[in-house]
């Protein structure tokens, strides 16, 4: 990995995700810090990236590297951790039952993926599916259910839906720009994950073979 990628590209990509991951545009602009559970999910996600070889910590921090290079490496890992938390923050509904369900689903999916020990491409594809699905449900499905209806019939149906669900599904309404920003942020985050220094393929294959032999 080049010094430019490690010292400039990766930190800037992940910090940009950290910045825009909390952006919500409604009547005003709000920047939301990551909730506690997003930090927990972020730890799991970093664990998954290390396990599948998408992130090799020893290529970022090692005794054979210079002090400056190690500082750059620590910053990349910290930025990746914060960006992961903000990626979960932006992909999770803001309130009600959907928020609880999303958090539980993330937890189960991450735990399941860690247990399955996929290789790097499979793990990254899995993350693409997780964040892509969450984005569609939050910014397309839930936004449509929560948006004020235009016709009287649609309005009646919406009121009935809110009554049946006790108002626990509908969400606060954001400006459409929030969805576009979220889309760009998640794409940038996944791009950042692809850029991370991966574990040496040969060593990884050896580890996988050893694991299979043991099991």
């Amino acid at each position, binding site marked *: 990995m080049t010094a430019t990628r*490690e010292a400039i590209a990766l930190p800037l990509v992940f910090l940009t995700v950290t910045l825009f991951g909390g952006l919500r545009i409604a009547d005003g602009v709000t920047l939301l*810090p990551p909730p506690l559970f997003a930090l927990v999910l972020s730890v799991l996600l970093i664990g998954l990236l290390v396990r599948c070889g998408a992130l090799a910590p020893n290529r970022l921090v090692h005794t054979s590297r210079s002090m*400056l290079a190690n*500082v750059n490496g620590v*910053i990349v890992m910290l*930025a990746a951790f914060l960006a992961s938390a903000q990626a979960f923050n932006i992909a999770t509904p803001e309130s009600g039952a959907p928020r609880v369900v999303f958090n539980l689903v993330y937890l189960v999916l991450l735990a399941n993926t860690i247990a399955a020990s996929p290789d790097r491409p499979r793990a990254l594809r899995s993350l693409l599916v997780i964040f892509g699905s969450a984005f569609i449900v939050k910014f397309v499905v839930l936004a449509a259910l929560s948006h004020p209806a235009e016709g009287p019939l649609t309005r009646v149906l919406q009121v009935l839906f809110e009554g049946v669900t006790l108002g626990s599904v509908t969400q606060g309404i954001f400006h459409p720009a929030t969805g576009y920003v979220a889309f760009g942020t998640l794409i940038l985050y996944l791009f950042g994950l692809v850029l991370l220094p991966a574990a040496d393929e040969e060593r990884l294959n050896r580890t996988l073979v050893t694991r299979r032999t043991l099991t």
Partner: protein
Amino acid sequence: MRDRMVRGIGLALTLGYATFIAWLYVQQPQSAAEVTGGLSATIGSYRVDTAAFEDGMAFFRRDQFAAARIAFERADPAHQDPQVQFYVAYSYYRQGWGRFYQDDKLFAQGLEAVNRAMARAPDGRIRVDDPALQMRSGEELKAELEAGLRRDASDFNPARILRPRK
């Protein structure tokens, strides 16, 4: 050598960018003007447009509060000047004040403005030497706005209609 330079530049860039992001999350600016104004206030180069402020004061003294706020907004677009924000809060108070009832929405906006003024003032202490005002400190104005928003038994005291507007 080139590698060290790239790493050094990257480190400086990253630390600067991270500090800027942390500042944004703490300040929660609502517009680009607030971002640039806030940054220039941080380095002490932010200046209020005095002509616009004088226009605002003229409107304020004629009880044209909505017009006064437009001029104050022009004078302090980044909402960084404690004195201008104090007058913005005062304009909300005077416009929202009523002998029989208070306009809660205007009082709430006034409270927001006075909180902003106190947050920007050194040590949170704001004093305005204006003989035309009966409340000359942030604390007095804030207490009056909070009292106006509070619901209690004193709201039903008939003597309330005799109280003066400050």
